[in-house]
């Protein structure tokens, strides 16, 4: 991001403010949802969806992931794959475990 013109930077700043408002709003939304009674699974899924949206906003705009370079995309893809394996494979192994 080292070759930005001042105009571009100013434009960025507007986005930052918008993103900030969105994040604050979504925070209130998650808290709000948690007070509704959506059932266990529904609540978890919704909360995680909102968190993911927030996370994506932070990553894409604050961390400028949207206009990053391929090297970084590749790194992150590898990381995400490893992360998903780490989360889901032990879980499914536990659920499949033989026991009485």
């Amino acid at each position, binding site marked *: 991001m080292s070759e930005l013109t001042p105009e571009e930077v100013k434009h960025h700043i507007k986005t930052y403010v918008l993103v900030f408002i969105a994040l604050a709003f979504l925070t209130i939304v998650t808290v709000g949802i948690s007070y509704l009674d959506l059932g266990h699974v529904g609540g978890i899924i919704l909360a995680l969806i909102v968190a993911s949206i927030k996370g994506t906003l932070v990553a894409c705009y604050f961390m400028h992931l949207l206009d990053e370079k391929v*090297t970084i995309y590749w790194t992150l893809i*590898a*990381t995400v*794959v*490893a992360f998903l*394996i*780490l989360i889901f*494979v*032990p879980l*499914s*192994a*536990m659920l*499949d*475990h*033989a*026991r009485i």
Partner: protein
Amino acid sequence: MSTDQYKQSFWTKYIWSTDHKIIGIQYGITSLVWLLFGFGLMMIMRYQLAYPDTPVPIVGALLGEGGLLPPEMYNSLGAMHGTIMIFLGVVPLAFGAFGNYFVPLQIGAIDMAFPKLNAASYWTYFAGSVIMATGFFVPGGAANSGWTSYPPLSEIATMGQTVWLIGMVMLITSSLLGSVNILVTVIQLRTDGLTWMRLPIFVWTQFITAFLLLLAFPPLEAAGVLQLMDRVVGTSFFMPSGLVVTGEVMTNAGGGSPLLWQHLFWFLAHPEVYVLILPAFGIVAEIIANNTRKPLAGYKALVYAMVFLAFMSFIVWAHHMYITGMGTSIGAFFQTTTMIISIPSVVILTALLLSLWGGSIRFNTPMLFALGFIPMFGIGGLTGLPLGLAAADIHLHDTYYVIGHFHYVVAPGTIFALFAGIYYWFPKITGKRTNELLGKLHFFFSLIFMNGVFMPMFIQGLAGVSRRLADGGQTYAHAADVIYLNEVMSYSAWLLGLAQIFFIINMVISLFGKKTGEKNPWDATTLEWTDTTSPPLGHGNFEIVPKVYRGPYEYSVPGEKQDFTPQSKKV
């Protein structure tokens, strides 16, 4: 870039250095000392295995009462042998030392991307290793729950385990710093013309290894923190409720699972074994290309196979856990991935073997070790196959068969490759040559005794003799037929120790020997032998930073005058 531009005191030059070459040497010396120490522990243990309940000679006095090696101490030495060999010995030597020293040189960089971080990672390693060793002096002795540290045993263990955990967290941190550094260096600092497909295989292996370290180590760090919490603060992440230990009901809250630790541990520890082997592949490939005087067969196949191997290594870990009672679908999944991961290994070995065809093979010391590596790794790898099939693993799990399997890949495998690398690059580091006769003696004796130690393990393993038995199986009738082998193995281990004296003497006399003045004694093609300022050790690696015009192993190119064409030679 001559040295005198950087007038430094001894301390800044050799101790707090940020020069990757110095740091590489620091890593190298520290890790060799640890290797020797870890081997020393094993020689003590082998005495106990051969002659249970008899006082250990020479070092007996250090062990305590009557020079005997009590079982808890045996377990300590075993756990520390495993930990030291892997985390303080082989990884820092293969990745820290070789990676640090030769990756920048082979890619035409003047240093690592982050020299200060590099120093920090060495010192974190050093501190972590010292902490690890202080475990021997705390009450109850060093960690004694195996290098795998399975809870609940490790949670009710003596204080040494806490020390072990703290040490591990530091070692992991150090590896993380190192891996970020290598990755950035390879991606950013390759010299002009050095495209990805022109990288020496050694650089590729280091690069892939760094990725494994980066992504596989942190979960163990997390697990280490959780186990520390369990031990220090009294949480029960790995402890179910209602355990009765030596008659007392445990009061912890419960709800935890011992299998959670095993998953997090092996999530690291399987990729870890490829961390041990990949740099070895790289060194061996380098030396084979050089000493057959011809290009490697299937450079691309090697690279793709290694990338695939690295990816697969993240999804095979539970083959260490079949016998915990794994279900059928997960069992099928992990057996399949384990069989799949053996294919790239076969491809790599095949490429190395085919590279010999049509060569003009020079049998110098590094080449002997590299050649020795191939069948020895072959034995180790092939014996991985029955372990990978859950049904066969029922009989072989946690027996000496497993010990035999992995020692063949790490000892006559990786350790041989590391010796090969040391002999091969010694002239690069010191400007001097090693003694060929001593080197060859070292090789042949090591080869014989390595097999003497590890081959009988398969026999004991097939008989069903468990590992980690402080009396070597004396208690069990099913071991009676094969127990005589314990003595064979122990003598081989001690003789293997003696054989290392050739190595040590060789290193010492070669260090004090005369400089040969050759810049490229092996007539090699890769950049570390071209236009460099080292030796003598100077800051900044190259007189003129070289540009690259061709692939890494252009040996015996038809129509060239010499039988090698350096990468930096203009077209």
